[in-house]
């Protein structure tokens, strides 16, 4: 059973002469409950795929299917109950004037929940923050704590598919370990499917079951993590990336 299927996805920005093709003919499939990684260097189009799935990059063609349903250009709110995203920079992804409570409560309200108080409390426990952080503002939180809030916000609508855009690249390594552990626990506890973008092969190797290597907007190779660990990449570019990161 496939949770996310991408076929012949093209994403571009700008028009006519200024047109930049960020993703060219990408196709891959993520099974339900699987954790799939997208790796590549900056500008390879890996984050753009996430933005196309969520509708943040509006100019795309091809087929995106989530849980058997084709995604239309205009996404209903129900879509966002199924698919959520965690952004790269926790310092930029939280509104500077909204407290943790306000962020979570608004999200829950938008998705039509009524038992908001109890749910905010539970979300904070789920991401390991606890109640004393509930009324803090972002500037009173560390990077790791902010990222936990961002994860709590993404979990609020109880999605099935979580898109992770370099969720730890802005964090210290010790905090990265905490967040990666948290994500692994949440995936197990909530039966989530992950699509994770990263430039760090060892992070993807740790978190994912399979991965796709991207270069200049194209997927050059899809492989198992076992193959990655055994350094058995077939495409020369993947081999090059592996060499550079060991």
């Amino acid at each position, binding site marked *: 059973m496939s949770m996310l299927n991408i076929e012949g996805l093209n994403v571009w920005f700008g028009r006519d002469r200024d047109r930049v093709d960020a993703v060219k003919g990408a196709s891959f499939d993520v099974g339900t409950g699987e954790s799939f990684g997208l790796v590549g260097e900056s500008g390879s189009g890996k984050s753009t795929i996430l933005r196309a799935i969520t509708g*943040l990059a509006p100019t795309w063609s091809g087929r995106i299917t989530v849980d058997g349903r084709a995604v239309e250009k205009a996404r209903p709110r129900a879509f*966002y109950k199924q698919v959520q995203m965690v952004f*790269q*920079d926790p310092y930029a992804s939280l509104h*500077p*004037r909204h407290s943790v409570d*306000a962020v979570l409560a608004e999200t829950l309200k938008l*998705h039509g929940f009524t038992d908001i108080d109890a749910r905010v409390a539970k979300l904070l426990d789920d991401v390991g923050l606890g109640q004393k952080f509930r009324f803090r503002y972002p500037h009173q939180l560390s990077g790791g704590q902010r990222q936990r809030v961002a994860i709590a916000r993404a979990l609020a609508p109880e999605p099935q598919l979580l898109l992770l855009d370099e969720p730890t690249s802005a964090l210290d390594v010790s905090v990265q370990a905490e967040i990666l552990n948290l994500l692994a626990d949440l995936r197990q506890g909530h039966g989530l499917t992950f699509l994770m973008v990263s430039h760090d092969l060892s992070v993807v190797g740790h978190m994912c079951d399979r991965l796709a290597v991207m270069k200049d907007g194209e997927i050059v190779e899809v492989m198992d993590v076992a193959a990655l660990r055994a350094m058995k990449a077939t495409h020369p570019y993947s081999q090059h990336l592996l060499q550079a990161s060991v």
Partner: protein
Amino acid sequence: MADMTLRQWLLTDTPTSRRHAKLSALYQGWLAFRSNTMAMIGLGILLLLVFIAAAAPLLAPHDPFVQNLGNRLAPLGSEGHLLGTDSLGRDILSRLIYGARITLYIVALVALIAPVVGLLVGTVSGYVGGWVDIVLMRITDIFLAFPRLVLALAFVAALGAGIENAVIAISLTAWPPYARIARAETLTIRSSDYIAAIKLQGAGGLRIITKHIWPLCISSLIVRVTLDMAGIILAAAGLGFLGLGAQPPSPEWGAMISEGRRFILDHWWVATMPGLAIFTVSLAFNLLGDGLRDVLDPKAGE
């Protein structure tokens, strides 16, 4: 914790309720503001002005409208008239005290109209983009293309002289800069991750503009309005001076200068005293604006 002082309760890292968090944030802002001496002076002057305006009948030694032609153009410090009298023998101090009401009235009305219009136009223009942006910004450009006082003059001429019309005219000429600021801020906020994040919760444009963009634009607008207040008072005074704002015998400060102008060489205090009042209040607003910028600017604050 019963032995916690109010100060500790307000400065806590772990607020226990929404209200507590709000109050705590406000208190921290107040502490930052309080440490700015000049801003506190500005605030003090303005609070004094509000008090004077409210208590004008109690404070004023004379009726501001009563004329005494026998005692016209009395100098400073003459008996019963600390700041002297004007060409019709009216007590200048009393007129200044009552004039504070008019000044506050103008300031309050303009501060309510101009930034709100600017915020609406600017954020909608910036967030929606496309042809809406083009149309709204060209209208803004048209307003910006005229000198402010000349445009206000034209409006007053069309609407008729009087203090309300002066306020409307000043507001109409004051909003375009606010729209520009709000639009510029909206453009940067619009592309930020936290707006993308709320979009992913299915939030619509109206909610994003009012709940997410406005709170961030308002602080810089407040600062800007405070700094502009001096200019607005001066514009109102200018209109009064030209006889298009407050009408005699109203003790509006600009109109008072206009009346005193004829005697400026021989009886300098008649025009100078209201001039000093305008200067003090304008300066107070500027000081306050500077202090508010330090507190409210989210970029510098964190």
